C-alpha cells in the first residue's frame, strides 16, 4: 500500500538529502575551522564550489574510456538510491522496499568499485594507488558495517532499514549494550568510509597519505562537481543511518503532518550536533599511517562482532 503521505515523505526526504548534503559538509568544515582558530570558508562554500565546477569545461584524458566518463554519474546515482532508502524524516517510505540494509552496503560497494575503476582507467600512478588503498579500506570496512546493521536488524527483527528504524523508535526505553558497541563501531567505519581523519584527510594532496583525493585527481568540471556532491551525499547518508539507528527519537512514523513538522527540526538539530562532533573528532585525532588503518578497521569489526555476540547472548 503506497500512501500519499508516504510519497510526499519520500520526495521531501530525497530533495532534502540532495540539497542539504553540501551544507552538512560545509558545516563540518566550518566547525573544524573554528576549532582550529581559523575563520573558516563559510557554510555555503561547497555550494559555490559545485556551481563553479559545473560552469567549467571538462578536460578528459585522451586515453580515458567510457568508464571514466560514466563513473561520476553512477556514483551519484548510487548515493541517491542510498539516500532514498535511509529513513530520515519518516519511516513509511514507499521506496524502502527496493533495498534493505544489506543491499545498502552493496550500493556503497558499487559506487566504490566504479570510482576505483575510473581512477585506474587513465593509468596514472596516483589513481592506481588511491584505488588500491580505497579497496583495502572498503574490504575491511564493509564487513564491519554489515555487522553493525545486522545487530540493529537482529534487535528489530527486520533487515529493512525503514522497519528497523520504526521499531527502534517505537521501542520503550531499554539499555542495549550491543547498540552502544555497534554505535562506536559504526562511527569508526563512517570515518574510514567518508575519508575523514584519522584514516584519510579530505584536505590533503600529499601523495603518501591521500586515498580518496588520489582517485579523483584526474577529474574536472562537472564530473568533479558530481563526485564532490556524491561525497557530500555519502557523508549525509552515513550520518542519517547513524542518527536513525542510534538516535531515532523524533522521527515521524505515520503519515501525520504534525510529526513531519516535528521531525524536520529534530533532524537538522541532530545533524548539526553530529557534524560538530565529527569536527571535534577530526581535530583531536591525528592522521594514522596508512598501515595502521587495517588495525583501526579491525577494531571496528571486532566491536561490531562483539555487539552482535552480546545481543545474541545477553539480550535475547
Amino acid at each position: 500500500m503506497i500512501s500519499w503521505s508516504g510519497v510526499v515523505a519520500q520526495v521531501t526526504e530525497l530533495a532534502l538529502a540532495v540539497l542539504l548534503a553540501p551544507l552538512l559538509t560545509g558545516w563540518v568544515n566550518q566547525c573544524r575551522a573554528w576549532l582550529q582558530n581559523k575563520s573558516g570558508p563559510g557554510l555555503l562554500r561547497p555550494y559555490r564550489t559545485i556551481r563553479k565546477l559545473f560552469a567549467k569545461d571538462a578536460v578528459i584524458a585522451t586515453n580515458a574510456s567510457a568508464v571514466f566518463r560514466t563513473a561520476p554519474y553512477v556514483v551519484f546515482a548510487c548515493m541517491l538510491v542510498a539516500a532514498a532508502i535511509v529513513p530520515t524524516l519518516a519511516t513509511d517510505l514507499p521506496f524502502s522496499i527496493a533495498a534493505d540494509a544489506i543491499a545498502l552496503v552493496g550500493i556503497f560497494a558499487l559506487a566504490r568499485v566504479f570510482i576505483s575503476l575510473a581512477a585506474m582507467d587513465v593509468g596514472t600512478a596516483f589513481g592506481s594507488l588511491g584505488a588500491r588503498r580505497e579497496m583495502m579500506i572498503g574490504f575491511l570496512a564493509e564487513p564491519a558495517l554489515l555487522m553493525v546493521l545486522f545487530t540493529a536488524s537482529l534487535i528489530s527483527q527486520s533487515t529493512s532499514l525503514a522497519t528497523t528504524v520504526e521499531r527502534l523508535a517505537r521501542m520503550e526505553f531499554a539499555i542495549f549494550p550491543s547498540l552502544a558497541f555497534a554505535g562506536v563501531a559504526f562511527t569508526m567505519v563512517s570515518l574510514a568510509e567518508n575519508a575523514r581523519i584519522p584514516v584519510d584527510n579530505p584536505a590533503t594532496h600529499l601523495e603518501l597519505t591521500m586515498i580518496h583525493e588520489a582517485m579523483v585527481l584526474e577529474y574536472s568540471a562537472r564530473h568533479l562537481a558530481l563526485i564532490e556532491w556524491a561525497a557530500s551525499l555519502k557523508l549525509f547518508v552515513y550520518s542519517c543511518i547513524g542518527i536513525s539507528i542510534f538516535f531515532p527519537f523524533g522521527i515521524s512514523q505515520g503519515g501525520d503532518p504534525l510529526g513531519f513538522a516535528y521531525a524536520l527540526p529534530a533532524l537538522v538539530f541532530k545533524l548539526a550536533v553530529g557534524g560538530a562532533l565529527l569536527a571535534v573528532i577530526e581535530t583531536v585525532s591525528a592522521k594514522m599511517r596508512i598501515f595502521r588503518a587495517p588495525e583501526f578497521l579491525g577494531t571496528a569489526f571486532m566491536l561490531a562482532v562483539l555487539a552482535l555476540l552480546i545481543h545474541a547472548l545477553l539480550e535475547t
Partner: protein
Amino acid sequence: MITAAFANQIINLFAAVMLLLAFAMLAQRRVLSLIDLFAMQGLVLTLSTGFVAYTTGQTHLWFSAGITFALKVVLLPWILYRLIRQLDVKWDVEGLINIPTTMLIGIVLVILSFNVALPISQIAGTITKGTLGIALASVLLAFLMMITRSKAVPQVIGFLAMENGLFFAATAATYGMPMVVELGIALDVLVGVVILGVFFFQIRERFDSLDIRHLEKLKEE
C-alpha cells in the same frame, strides 16, 4: 526502587563493558595503557558490585565493593605504575601472535564460554542469562593475553584481569562469596602482586630485561 528488568539491563551493561575492556586489553600495545584498562575494569567491578549490593540489599557486598575499589582501582595500579617506573621497562608490549589473530581467537573463546555457561545460567535464578558466560569469557581472554604476551608485566596484568573475571562471576552469579573468602582472595591477590614485584627485580637483576623469552631454557630434551 528500580524494577528487576531494569536492574538486569544494568548488570548486562556492566557485563558488556567488562567484555569490551577484556578485548581492549587484548588489543592494547602499551603497558601503561594496559594498567589503565585494568584499573577501569576494577572500576566496572566496583560499580557492578555496588549495584548488586544496592538492588539485593546484601550489606557484605558493599564491603567487597569497597575492597575492590581500594585494591583494584587504587592500590594495584599504583604498585604496577611504580614497578614500571622503577624497572624502567620498555613501554611497548610485544605479542607473540599478531593482534588481529589474537582477537579472532578471542571471539572463539567468547562463544565457547557462552556455550559452557549456558546450561548453568538456565538453571540459576540469580543471574541474567549471559553474565556468567561473560565472566568466564573475561577469564579466558585474560588467559589468552597471558599466553600471547612475551613480557612479564603484561602477563601479570593478565593474571590480575583473570581474577577480575572470577570476581565478576562471583558477584553476578552468586551475589558474592562469603566475606571470609573474599577477604582471603583479596589478600592472596595483594600478596601475589607484591611477591611478583620482588620477583621482577630478581628477573631483571639476572637477565637485564623482563622479556620472558629468556625464561625458556628449561625444556625436555
